């Protein structure tokens, strides 16, 4: 019973996070400028990371933790590169 409550609560949380991803992707598509899209991509990474954390709780396993950890530490690298490209026209000078 208790397990079921948690399972479905987490499922609901996942739906919310997935909806959050949809909201983010809306901004990616809409823009209007590249920086809007890149901010949104960063947020998309964040949302996906949280989705995975919740997924781990929902199935009671820590196997997927490192995926979340890596997103949290390295997910920004891509967006930093994009941002720098926007500002300077090249990533590494």
């Amino acid at each position, binding site marked *: 019973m208790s397990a079921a409550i948690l399972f479905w609560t987490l*499922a609901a949380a*996942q*739906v919310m*996070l*997935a*909806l959050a*991803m*949809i909201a983010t*992707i809306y901004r*990616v*598509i809409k*823009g209007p400028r*590249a920086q809007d*899209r*890149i901010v*949104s*991509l960063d947020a*998309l*990474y964040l949302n*996906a990371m949280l*989705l*995975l954390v919740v*997924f781990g709780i929902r199935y009671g396993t820590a*196997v*997927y933790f*490192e*995926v979340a*950890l*890596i*997103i949290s*530490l*390295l*997910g920004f*690298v*891509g967006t*930093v*590169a*994009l941002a*720098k*490209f*926007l*500002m*300077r*026209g*090249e*990533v*590494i*000078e």
Partner: protein
Amino acid sequence: MASSIFLIAIVVVPFIASLVAALLPQTARNAEAWLSAAVAIFGLAVTIWLYPQVTDGGVLRQEISWIPELGLNLIFRIDGFAWLFCLLITGVGLLVVLYARYYMSPKDPVPRFFAFFLAFMGSMLGVVLSGNLVQLVVFWELTSITSFLLIGYWFHLVQARDGARMALTVTGLGGLGLLLGMLIIGHIVGSYDLDIVLASGDLIKSHPLYVPALLLVLLGALTKSAQFPFQFWLPHAMAAPTPVSAYLHSATMVKAGVFLLVRFWPVMASTDAWFWIVTFAGLTTLVLGAYIAIFQTDLKGLLAYSTISHLGLITTLLGMSSPLAAVAAIFHIANHATFKASLFMAAGIIDHETGTRDIRKLSGLFRFMPFTATLAMVASAAMAGVPLLNGFLSKEMFFTETALRDANPFVNLALPVGATVAGMFSVVYSLRFVHGVFFGPAPAGLDRVPHEPPALMRRPIEILVLLCLLVGIIPGITIGPFLAAAVVSVVGPDTPYYSLSVWHGFNIPLAMSAIALAGGVLLYLALHKYLARGIEGAPLIGNLKGQRIFERVLVTISWKWAKALEKFLGTRRLQPQLALLVTLAIIAAAIPLVAGVGPLALPPTPFDPAFALVWGVGIVCAIAATYQAKFHRLVALVLLGGAGLVTCVTFVWFSAPDLAVTQLLVEIVTTVLILLGLRWLPKRVEFDSDDTLSRKARVRRIRDLGLAIIAGCGMALMSYAIMTRPAGQGIGDFFLENSYKLGGGTNVVNVMLVDFRGFDTFGEITVLGIVALTVFALLRRFRPASDSIEKPEQQRIQNAFDDQRPDRNSGDTINEYLMIPAVIMAWLFPVIIVLALYIFMRGHDQPGGGFAAGIVMSIGFILQYMAGGTRWVEERLRILPVRWIGMGLLVALATGMGSWLFGYPFMTTAFQYAEIPFIGRVPMASALIFDLGVFTLVVGATVLILIALAHQSVRAPRASRRPAIVREDASPKPEEAR
């Protein structure tokens, strides 16, 4: 036994001598001649010595095993007919060598001449002595090739090149037809052994494949013997040195065609098909050749057409299929060889002495070279069929056969009339040759005063003419026995009686001869004025030039059509190629799938709305990325990242943590990578909207979209079909069961990667290393396009801004921009290193491993490059990525080879639990060392790729030499069409 070894030696010795001749010095004219003469004498001697063995249908054979599986053994065999040919080849060959010694100029590269000549002689002997059909084809084609080389001997002359190529093309084609014909005969008979084939005449003639086989064999024979409609190449072969013409185009090579007809006469003749085709070709050639010969102005051209005509005579005889006709044919083969070779040599002498072969320029040479003139006149008489010369005898036999032939009325009329008319023509051209060259006033306008050639040069002609006379007068003694031997070996022991005597009384053939002679003289007188005008080409058919047609056809088919077809059937553009690839893949999958994909089941895994929503995002990303990829690259890249992220989530969802980690990391590196590249791509502005698209482009788009949708549906269908089917008993369970027990790790996927299927990983990291090296190599020579050399627009504006302000230095903007973020990024460096090592260490038991760790580590490096710039990082950190790559490979290799020391195969893992103080029981698998190699290589390769790209911005920009847009096709310069 001994004699059969000599049989092989006759064929082999000329080839060996040919090699020797090729290696002699340029000036060794005499040595070359002696060598060649020795070879010919050797062949002649052996031939004569073998004579007793081939009389009365005797056959001598010697078999050498070659490829017995395919029924292809080397069989050398000689019978009476082959013997006669051997005699001609070696005998005439000897005389031609003697003649050539004097004919060839000291400036000519004689080694090449004699080498080719000897090789040709060997090939020709090979043809006549082959006892295996395939072997016969081998030597047959060798004669084509060597004669090609001989005709093209003076290759600086355009006629020589064209003549050689045409000869090769025509006879080569015939040879290929012959090959197929021989293969069919082999199929019919069940063997390629000539003796077996010769014993299977009824089988062959009654087989449904008889006609195709016949046609193909005839294709070979008629092209070689320059029979209608393939007669056109022979006159152009006259570009060859005259000794070559005397040998190849009178005595030997063109005779190979009729040799073949005679050879297969016993097993293929006397059918309607044979009669009609062979006789028609022969008779047409006979008349046509003789007619054209009359109007030739070139001596060698006249002789060449005369040769064609005489070969037509022989062919006609063979076509008639009667034994006596075959006898006549064989007889005429020998006679023609003697008088035609001598005539060619005489023509060569005239050419040599006067510098021209043009009948219009020549006249009255009798007074300058009476001996040669006499000899030529006798030989011409033989050619014209004057009594008491050998030509008369065989022509009489021919007339007899045509006159006695009793088939249908048309044939009964056409044959004798055609024969007589051709005989008349031959008298005309013989008269023209003799009268035009040797009589009349002294020639005017020659460069030199002609005189008799050296005696030794004339000697071969004397011998040949003597033979003409001897055979003509006393045939029974001179040629009789040899002819009999040859005839028996062809016609068989039941050869009907034939008489070689000169006088047979008054009969129809004699009348025909008389008509031909008298008519010929009258016709010559009638034509004299016309001929004196020296008009080139025969009336009525003069414009019908076989050569021109041939060349035009050849160029059209082999060049124009080929180019058009290649353009039609192929493409050099990438998009159609990829479209074809996709189309074919679709077809390859669709055919079996349509035949039966089985029923599709309902999905077994319960629906989860969150996952559906996530893929909603993924699909939007994919489609939008597709839409934006043309004009908004950055946006496409962002969206691609979104799709990759969703893929990563999918991997997590369905129990693949390792995949998720790897996918994610690769995604990040790829984004940075493509961004690094984006700087060098041209700015793209949206200019063509859909309504300005051409119709063609729109059709192409629709087609591509259709392909893409079909491919997508197919993939979806196949994937769904598999996923909804229960999995069978696969190999997966083994890995799950044994990963810990035998592999020493709990992360099954990692154990597979470093142990069970570690060899895959080995290959995979090699690929990564190779690509890194390639990228590095390519970028060392990288030249940006001219419009990308400048710094990016943003930097230019920002630098200009900095430069304008007195209180600012160039580069301040970037420093300010990055100051704070760079600090954070630098502090993350050690953190990322720790994370990389963590991921590496846990890989065997938990998601992670060498590859992921390596990528994490390189991301750590790249982040510093982005924060501080190339120079800043490289002042501080010294990375030698190529060494890392090498080290990674060697570590992995050494680990794998370690197991050899214990007698196990490559990459056999050893693992054990080691008690380490303070740490406790630790699994120590050698696979971990392998993984270390993976880690090292991945760091090296990834960093090398990224840094090599990044360095382009630092290097002094060098423009490409090329103009910005290459419009014309850069294909190599077109060369002339032939």
